[in-house]
């Protein structure tokens, strides 16, 4: 027998033979547990990172007298007013003289609401200018009563529709305020 006997070598008489134990342990349960934990840690580490949306704002002009107004073609602009209770009004062109079909109208957020209109207008503006560089310009005007979700929703729409130029403008004309309040 190739067994190492580590007996002290004292008594030769009573040999105690230890029972031969099975060296193999059933590892199935252990592996199960390990893989469960791996799955858990993998999913939690990759999904816990929060999403973010980057937003660039134009430089703020400190001196109100130094305002440099950039003239844009009113046929390219669409103004979106955000009101309370998820109200959304848009008009195309100037408020006093909107372009054809661009009179102030209420829309809802999402796929069947403002998205269709945005895609439609984007195409029309491109047809009108005939220049890929000059796409639609969307002006977002969140009112004081609108909430943060509305702002994110509309910025998300900009990202989905891929609007080339959009801006968040904070000043309201009295007519626009009336438009949001009026039914």
């Amino acid at each position: 027998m190739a067994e190492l006997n580590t007996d002290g070598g004292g008594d030769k008489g009573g040999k105690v033979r230890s029972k031969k134990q099975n060296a193999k342990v059933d590892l199935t349960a252990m592996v199960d547990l390990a893989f469960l934990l791996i799955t858990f840690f993998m999913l939690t580490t990759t999904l816990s990172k929060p999403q973010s949306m980057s937003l660039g704002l134009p430089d703020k002009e400190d001196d109100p007298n130094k305002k440099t107004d950039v003239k844009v073609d009113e046929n390219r602009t669409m103004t979106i007013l955000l009101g309370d209770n998820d109200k959304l009004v848009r008009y195309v062109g100037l408020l006093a003289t909107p372009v054809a079909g661009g009179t102030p109208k209420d829309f809802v957020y999402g796929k069947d609401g403002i998205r269709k209109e945005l895609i439609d207008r984007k195409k029309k503006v491109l047809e009108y200018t005939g220049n890929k560089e000059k796409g639609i310009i969307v002006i977002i005007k969140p009112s004081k009563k609108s909430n943060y979700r509305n702002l994110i929703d509309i910025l998300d729409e900009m990202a989905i529709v891929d609007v080339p130029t959009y801006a968040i403008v904070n000043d309201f004309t009295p007519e626009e305020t009336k438009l949001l309040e009026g039914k």
Partner: protein
Amino acid sequence: MAKIKMKKKSTSTDMTAMCDVAFLLLTFFILTATAKVPEALPVDTPASTVQTKLPESDLATITIGKGKVFFDLKGREVRKRALELMGEKYGVTFTQEEMDKFALMEGFGVPIQSLSQIIALKSADRNKVEQPGVPKDSLDNQLKEWIYNSRIANIETNDKELQIAIKGDAKEEYPAIKKVMDILQDQKINSFSLVTGLRGKDF
């Protein structure tokens, strides 16, 4: 008739190698995972389809919810330095122990004068205390100073410009968000991130 005896095959496979690999991976994931710190001001972020992830470092998060503003900063060294600069500015001294504790803390929403009380609390108790938010009005604009000093601290420590993320509650009214954006814009920070949740493709 000769009886053919089928060799009985063992049904158990040797799992040792599999077990080794599984535990190696498990150790890796446990070590790389960062424990989620409980948020000081829980907010419900609005969802969006944009899938950009936030950076892991060089980031300051401004949480806006319930009319209060909380401030959080990533990086231990940056936090320490920012606290030191803020202490100098407002004439509040912090001990070395307080700074070490602050470095490991989550976001906070108290004026600098009462910050040491919050630091002294245990992390489990911090969320139970009603924190009033970082003052941001024109008389006592501590949020502005926090942002400003954090930027300095980040440049000194990491030699990188600090990124700002705004984490707003979905129901928060726009003027509250705008106020924070204005504070940022006053410091010529014109681009920042808005933290959003995940939304399905079919929106």
